[in-house]
């Protein structure tokens, strides 16, 4: 089972993504904010990180930077999701593996996730 760590503050989006990804046979661990994510079990590593940008106590970009700078996470792809207009500007800041612009198509989202975890 492929494991995804999801950080998303909006309850509705989080719930829908959990239902969707689980229905596609992924294991999903979701977190509502930065502090919840930071309190996760550190011995467990996912196959993919999926971060929202605007979080009530921080930013998905900072999380992305942290993950990318941590050797333990080497090779684990990060996808950034945001409703922000200037999504591509994030690339310069944290260099994620892919972007998803909100609102997204779930088929598109699935394809992007599959591409990431396959490679």
């Amino acid at each position, binding site marked *: 089972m492929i494991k995804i760590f999801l950080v998303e503050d909006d309850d509705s989006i989080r719930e829908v993504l959990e239902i969707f990804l689980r229905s596609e046979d992924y294991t999903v661990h979701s977190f509502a904010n930065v502090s919840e994510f930071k309190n996760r079990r550190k011995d467990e590593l996912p196959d993919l990180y999926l971060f929202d940008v605007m979080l009530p106590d921080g930013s998905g970009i900072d999380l992305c930077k942290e993950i990318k700078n941590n050797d333990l996470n080497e090779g684990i792809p990060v996808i950034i999701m945001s409703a922000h207009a200037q999504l591509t500007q994030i690339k310069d800041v944290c260099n994620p593996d892919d972007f998803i612009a909100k609102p*997204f198509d779930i088929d598109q989202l699935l394809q992007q996730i599959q591409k990431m975890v396959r490679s």
Partner: protein
Amino acid sequence: MTNFFSSLGTEGLLDILKQSSDATAIYTGLDLHIQLANSAMLKMWGKDESVLGKKLEEALPELEKQPFTDILRNVWRTGERYEAHNKAAALEIDGSLVTSYFDFIYQPIFKEEKIYCILHTATDVSERVKALELVRKKEENEQLIKENLKAANEELQTLNEEFQATNEELAAMNEEYEATNEQLEEAHQLIDVFNQQLQKENTDLLSDNKGFKDYISDLNISQKGLEQHNKELRELNDTIILLNTKISDSETSFINLIAQAPVAMLLVKGDHFIITMINKPMLELLGKDTGIIGKSLFDAIPELEGQQAAEMLVRTFEEGVAHSEISNPIMLNRNGNLEQGFFNFNYTPFIENGKVTGVINMAVDVSPQVLAIQEREKTIAEKIALEEILRKSEDRLQGILETMAEGVGVIDATGQLVYANPMAQQILGLTESLIKDRTYHDAQWQNLRLDGTPLPLEEHPMTIMMTTGKPVHDHEICVQPPDRERFYISINAAPMFDTEGNLTGGIGTFMDVTTRRMITQGKDDFISIASHELKTPVTALKASLQLLQRSHEKLSVDVRARLVDQSIKSLEKLSHLITDLLDTSRIDQGQFKLNKQPFALSELFDDCCSNLIQNSAQNIIFEGDVTLMVEADNQQIGQVMTNFITNAIKYAPDSDEIIIKIEKLNDQEVKITVKDKGPGIPKEKLIHLFERYYRTDYQGQKFTGLGLGLYISADIIKNHGGRIGVESDFGNGSEFWFTLPL
């Protein structure tokens, strides 16, 4: 007779006509059909019997352009007979056009008063016409010869008359010559007589000559005696002259003095001021010649009368005291023009035998000097006036600059600031002397781009203006002073040139646009936030619906129900956001309508807050008289309450209780306060809370929502005639309150 013709019958009559040696033809109709043409007529036409039955114009095409057919038609129409003599007609005979002359008649024949046919009879009279023509030509020739003869005769007559006249003239001349000859003869005889008389007189003179010579020698003797007397007389005369010269020596030197003086001099004598002596410079000065000598001064120069110079002259004469005047203006008529001149005058009484007998006047023309002085004085006066205008203009400019709402700074060619008006000093927060210490690009300014990065020199609007030499308008930059918050200025820069077109510096006018920039920034931020906030529920909604559509069967009933619930929740969120946006839009357009009704405050709290109370972890406590009645828009006030309470829940999540207090301030006003025990709000942010687009980042956290709630609330309360506000002690919770009129 009638019987005879009727017995002949038509054929018989026709035969007669055909055989007639007179050319005969019969035509009918306007088409002029040839019904009959006898052999004489056919011969005349040069045609055969084939023409019978044809139209005349077809049979004789050459008649076109000749008058006959028209005449025939006219006869047909009018029924009037036409007769002509010696008429020329061109007919084609054996292939060539032959002109012959005819006498002919077109005779209309009537039957029962209606034209029936035209009878054409013709006789060739060419021979007769030719004979007549010959006679006519002969007569013409004779006439010509007669006229020529007559003319020749007249010429001869004229010549004859001319000869006659010449003859008469010659005869007259002859007579004149003869008379002259006779006169010459007479003169000749007279000359002879004179000659004889002259010869005789000559002889007489010769004899007289001898007598005269004797007389002359006598005279010579007496002359010598006279010469002796004369010598004695001359010696006496010389002595007298010597004596005379000595006497008049002094007068001569005076005359010489006047004559040779380089200044203009004049001596007038007597109470009529007779010009007695005048030198050349004075004559030139007055524009007169020596003709004025001996005349009264005021007769010679009448314009002097009444002028100051003349009065002085008279006074000198009367008082016997010298007068002088410098740069005296005087009007003189020179060359017919009355001109003004300026002179230094000197009047000296002329004294003879102890009595004033006249006045000596000396004058020096100082007009050029006086005019030059006057010109200079005028220039100075003009300069003073100009300076006054300039000073006033400068004062005005200074006044404008000092009261201007815009900052004005002037730089020289090096970029050094040379002037800053009071507003510039106020905006920049520096004294004029501090500003003048800097160039516009001094590093101390800490100029920034709008995005906060340092402003490179080449992007500074003053640099752009100074390098391009062109004005720059509304160029916005940010300034970061060391001791206060950064501010934004909009700069207009204009270059200054000297008369040669060299750049000598520039003027920068600027104003503080921080507020404008903040509003723009707030607006941009708001749009960014609004779009983000709108996209969030749309994302959930879209994903839920796509998931339901995509894998409906795969999902359990429970999960499907959750997705539907999520969709509804997201839609409600969207709907709230849109309502908020519409509310602000209504506020902007002044369309926020009130629907006032009396209600008890408890009603309000039940409507709006029961749901919040149920869903909140915090304890919501009411204090005061909830039964108090107000007249207001229940729904809108409910919106304000909801906003206050949700803010308290959102921003003070750790506050265990939220207190809602009702206070009747007086008979007119009730105050409702929502108090939390959260972290409070820093003072500098309090004033902005009710502004549009303002959303505080609360302890570095970001919260969802458009940040429009307090702005809308403030507008609702304002519309109700109430007041709204907030009190907060940082670290000790916040109190949001509003009042309503009772």
